């Protein structure tokens, strides 16, 4: 059965940003280049651009995330959009209103763009299938599936520090199983031509057949980090720490937490990334997080430019 890719319009341009998977490299590069123009611009202290003047961006967070929502909000405001933040918890669904009811109600308020965070994989696809043709949907994280803007800002960060993707070894460490960030990063890295992507973690946190995504699987962190150029640590959610998948946060830190000792196996100029928020002492040691190789704070800065770029490009595609 043929499925038209739901995030591209008839010209092959981005109509929605739902996942990195299946996007051609030129579209990723276009976003990174656009972001770069915004980064250099904010250096010149120009805070607002008129690109989204008169447009309404609705931040629809069905799952709480103040950080991500805030970066989208700042990005939209820098492009002169009107921003509406909605945290939609279980209460509206308990009133019997469905996800699509919510969307149609908001559309009636003339939304031009929805930024959607949802606990279920695929929810932004369902929304994108049912919005009016001129409305854009940006996936701000759905279940375990995708977090495309996070992956794009990570790619931006890697390009910023390493320039070229084609000679890199990148390791992603931790809870791959539950991580939408890891999935989007893997697709972005392989699409942009990174020759070796590794995932490192215990077998209980490794998705079935993950090697089919084009990655090498390691269960030993020192081996997995050997000679890598980029180390991406993932957040370990609290609910994973006790019992079923891992015996304890302490044991996880001992074997998979990033310390200076373990980092020494990577290349000397390797950079360390983390999507935040960090669990210090669980997946990463403070000495690394605050150390010379950490680029975790610049990631946050780039995140705003990348989200501006995505919004600006979507608004330009009809």
């Amino acid at each position, binding site marked *: 059965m043929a499925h038209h890719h739901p995030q591209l319009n008839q010209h092959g341009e981005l109509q929605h940003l739902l996942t990195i998977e299946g996007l051609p490299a030129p579209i990723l590069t276009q976003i990174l280049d656009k972001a770069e123009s915004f980064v250099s611009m904010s250096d010149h202290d120009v805070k607002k651009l008129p690109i989204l003047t008169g447009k309404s961006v609705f931040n629809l967070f069905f799952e709480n995330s103040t950080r991500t929502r805030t970066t989208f909000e700042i990005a939209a405001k820098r492009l002169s959009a009107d921003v509406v933040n909605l945290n939609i918890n279980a209460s509206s669904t308990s009133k019997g209103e469905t996800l699509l009811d919510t969307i149609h109600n908001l559309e009636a308020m003339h939304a031009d763009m929805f930024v959607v965070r949802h606990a*279920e994989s*695929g929810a932004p696809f369902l929304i994108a299938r049912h919005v009016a043709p001129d409305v854009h949907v940006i996936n701000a994280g759905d279940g375990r599936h995708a977090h495309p803007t996070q992956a794009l800002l990570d790619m931006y960060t890697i390009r910023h520090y390493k320039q070229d993707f084609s000679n890199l070894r990148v390791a992603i460490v931790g809870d791959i199983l539950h991580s939408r960030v890891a999935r989007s990063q893997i697709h972005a890295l392989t699409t942009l031509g990174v020759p070796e992507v590794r995932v490192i973690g215990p077998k209980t946190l490794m998705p*079935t*057949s993950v090697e089919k*995504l084009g990655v090498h699987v390691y269960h030993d962190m020192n081996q997995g980090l050997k000679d890598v150029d980029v180390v991406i640590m993932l957040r370990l959610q609290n609910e994973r720490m006790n019992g079923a998948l891992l015996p304890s946060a302490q044991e996880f830190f001992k074997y998979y937490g990033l310390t200076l000792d373990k980092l020494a196996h990577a290349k000397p100029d390797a950079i360390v990334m983390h999507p935040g928020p960090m669990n210090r002492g669980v997946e990463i040691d403070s000495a690394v997080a605050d150390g010379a190789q950490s680029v975790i704070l610049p990631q946050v800065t780039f995140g705003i430019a990348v989200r501006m770029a995505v919004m600006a490009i979507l608004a330009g595609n009809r």
Partner: protein
Amino acid sequence: MNIEIKNGRLIDPATGLDRVADLFIANGRIIAIGAAPEDFYVEQAIDATGLIVAPGLVDLSARLREPGFEYKATLESEMQAAVAGGVTSLACPPDTDPPLDEPGLVEMLKHRARQLNQANVYPIGALTQQLQGKRLTEMAELHDAGCVAFSQVDIPFENNLALLRSLQYAATFGFPVWLRPRDHGLVAGGVAHDGEVATRMGLSGIPVIAETVALATMLLLVKATGARVHFCRISSASGLEMVRDAKRQGLPVSCDVSINHIHLTDLDIGYFDAHYHLVPPLRSHRDRDAIRAALLDGTIDAICSDHTPVDDDGKLLPFAESEPGATGLELLLPLTLKWAEEAGLPLPQALQKITSDAARVLNVVAGKLEIGAPADLCLFDPAAEWRVEPKQLKSQGKNTPFAGMQMRGKVRHTLVNGQSVYQIG
């Protein structure tokens, strides 16, 4: 009424009969094939030129949603769907609300179905009270009320002791037990086959071992108790291998698959299309190939529609939150024909899986073109092409993964006990 069905291509899957001949019906039964009996006078003639005259289909699993879920479907709508699909006998699982765990409920269902005077309904009784997997139901009473087998459907047993006792008690009376092998701990909230597709989509997986671990336990208990067990909806290559072995050892087991799993795999889920959210989940290509092979070598006894009407609201949700199931009664025949064509299988052999073999599993008199047998017939045009338009389905459930697909084979006329219950021009 005396009926003559003229010029049809008669196919009796059980005997391999396949020839153009006339068929004669009196008092609701088939009384002659070929030449009219002496002193037979025709009250109604049905011209079946260009049509196949086959036994009415026997569907081993159709959820009618009564009692309890009438907003999803009613007995009226689903019985119409059945005969529109050429299904003249169907088994309905006990996962209604309340479940079919009391003779009164079963009698009511049988009575309602009889009043509608369409397909024959064979209720499967609940194996345990309220399907809680703890205490036995009054199986003998339920059997007297009309239950032909007993099932726990998809609901777990409290422990293996409860399963063992259920099998022992059913075996006491020789009642068949229908089991869905599914280790609930291993399913762990999963919604799609645990493989590359689920990994890419970030959907929590249901591993094949959720089926095989349960199957291993059940097979050991079959051995221990001698109970007759029918395994419902086997979905994996490994599961089929175990059933094949069990049959080789002579264990009294049989199994079925859903028609959906013969045609679809997890890849078809596409971009989170909830219409492909089924239980058991659609598995890999390898599993689908194994299902097709097991149909040919007899490991799989029957194909069922696994008809599960779900309303729109149940499907307009993120994949994992959506309600699993697909409507199927009206698609069982064309999808079986499609499989036959793809597998290069002679029609009589393919139709066995939805007529005589299914009737054998159900242990009822049906699914045959036999002199003296009830005249439950399905007359269909094997060449008629049509497109699946959910709105045009008789079933209240419009939920199908085959929407928009082209089908070949359309039912023109359905008879139950010699009475026309469905007819189109």
